[in-house]
């Protein structure tokens, strides 16, 4: 991924002004954001898939990203931990900071960033290793060598992911023997074992049945106590159930961003209203 640098120096966030006459994008200036996104453009080949995105992601809150397919919501969260780097011939312009630190800073390695900003994917993707090894792997590559500590942290994260009781007797079995919902919770456990600050969920329930979905949602509400959470979802009910803030994306633009309640009950943009009432998408 190439960065089109508009501002070679460290961005001065305080002065970044957001032009939003309709106040559709409501940024709470009283809060110090965990992640701050300013004037973010993203190009894939020659197509601009994200246009001038401005938003804040607040600490220990759940931010939902909604919008019809192809609106750029997945692209957006993949930039937040720079998984977008792997997309060939893509370009990014604008600023994103994690606790006031520019994530595109060459000194800030993507590897380090991803340790702090974890990700759970659309389809559960456990490694074809044992349940325990799935979690231990992340710890080992992040420098945890003591096997006792690895064990402790694995158990702790399994408990936190509400999976421990179901798998405690078969930690040595293959992760692939788990059900889809269990696999997804294992992926969450794997992610929180390395103690990230932010967890990105990319449509985590897209391939799950309703019961597993409910469990994951419950879990997200629980995890909010410890982590800042961003969740992409095409399920508006889910956004309403789990999130504190909601961002509505349409064709690469951020149409509306506000507290979830406000977005769903009293949207300030006609298009948001049309989408959440099911008129398109």
């Amino acid at each position, binding site marked *: 991924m190439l960065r089109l640098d508009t501002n070679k120096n460290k961005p001065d966030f305080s002065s970044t002004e957001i032009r939003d006459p309709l106040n559709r994008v409501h940024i709470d200036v009283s809060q110090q954001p965990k992640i701050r996104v300013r004037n973010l453009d993203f190009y894939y080949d020659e197509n601009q898939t994200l246009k001038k995105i401005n938003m804040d992601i607040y600490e220990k809150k759940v931010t939902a990203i909604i919008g019809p397919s192809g609106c750029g919501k997945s692209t957006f969260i993949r930039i937040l931990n720079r998984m977008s780097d792997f997309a060939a011939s893509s370009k990014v312009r604008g600023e994103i900071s994690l606790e006031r630190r520019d994530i595109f800073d060459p000194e800030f390695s993507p*590897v380090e960033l991803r340790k702090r900003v974890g990700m759970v994917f659309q389809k559960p993707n456990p490694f074809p290793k044992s349940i325990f090894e799935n979690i231990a792997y992340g710890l080992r590559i992040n420098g945890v060598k003591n096997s006792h500590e690895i064990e402790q942290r694995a158990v702790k994260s399994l408990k936190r992911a509400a999976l421990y009781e179901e798998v405690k007797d078969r930690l040595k079995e293959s992760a692939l023997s788990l059900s889809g919902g269990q696999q997804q919770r294992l992926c969450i456990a794997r992610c929180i074992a390395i103690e990230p600050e932010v967890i990105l969920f990319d449509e985590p329930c897209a391939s799950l049945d309703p019961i597993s979905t409910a469990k994951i949602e419950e879990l997200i509400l629980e995890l909010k106590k410890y982590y800042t959470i961003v969740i992409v979802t095409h399920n508006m009910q889910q956004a309403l159930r789990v999130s504190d803030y909601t961002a509505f994306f349409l064709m690469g633009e951020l149409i509306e961003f506000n507290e979830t309640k406000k977005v769903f009950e009293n949207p300030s943009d006609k298009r948001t209203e049309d989408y959440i009432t099911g008129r398109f998408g």
Partner: protein
Amino acid sequence: MKMQAKSLRQYAAFLMVRAVFLFTSFILLLITGFLLLKGAKVLSFDFIFKMPENSMTAGGIFPAILGTFYLVVMSIIFSAIPGIACAIYLNEYGPKGWISTMIRTSINNLSGVPSIVFGLFGLAVFVKKLGFGVSILSGSLTLSIVILPVIISSTREALMAIPQSMREASMALGATKWETVWNIILPQATPSILTAIIIGIGRAAGETAPILFTAAVFYSKELPRSIFSEVMALPYHIYALVTEGTAPQSQIPIAYGASIVLLFLVIIISLSAIYIRQKHRSAYAKIGH
């Protein structure tokens, strides 16, 4: 009426295709069966484990089997590491630029170069220029170039079959590229890489032209002592027995026996490659990405 003519036509055409297919299989089975029948007569424990006697008109073919073994092992040693590294680079690192394209094109062309041309290259470079002489070293270096593209392309296929989601999962945990390759990609690809190496072994064992001027001799009094010794090799032995032999009545049966041994070797090698791949594939289906 029209329907009937149509289905008749289809029936006839498919019958013909089936007949040609059966004919093809029949011929190929005929060849192997013919050799098997003739060769089975001479096959014995002594035939495999004894030295040739009476200027190659009696005795066994042990030195040829051993020579082929040495050549194969050495050529795998030379080709496996660059082959696997090349596949990893192209599939996991390779920038999409011209250099990758050039590497890929070179591999494709290398795999199409006639084996006798490799033999000439080995003669000019390993035997003469580097002065290794006609030896196991020269022969196995030459063979390693022959099987390099085989190993690269089979390994690449194995790497490509690993779902992208595995790479993403690892990178999202903060793993570097190499950590991902080493801990996640390679363990999953191991059975397929093994298959790639086995296919290479099969190829190296059966090739004759590359070792004609680089390693093989018709007869050597003793077993090879070092990598600079010339060797007898199974495929070359068959060729030499039927074309250079002086006593066809007693040497042709030996050639049958040697053919059977070579055929068995290659078939067992190929079968094990196919077996590992099939088993691995069904294990893979479980991941279901």
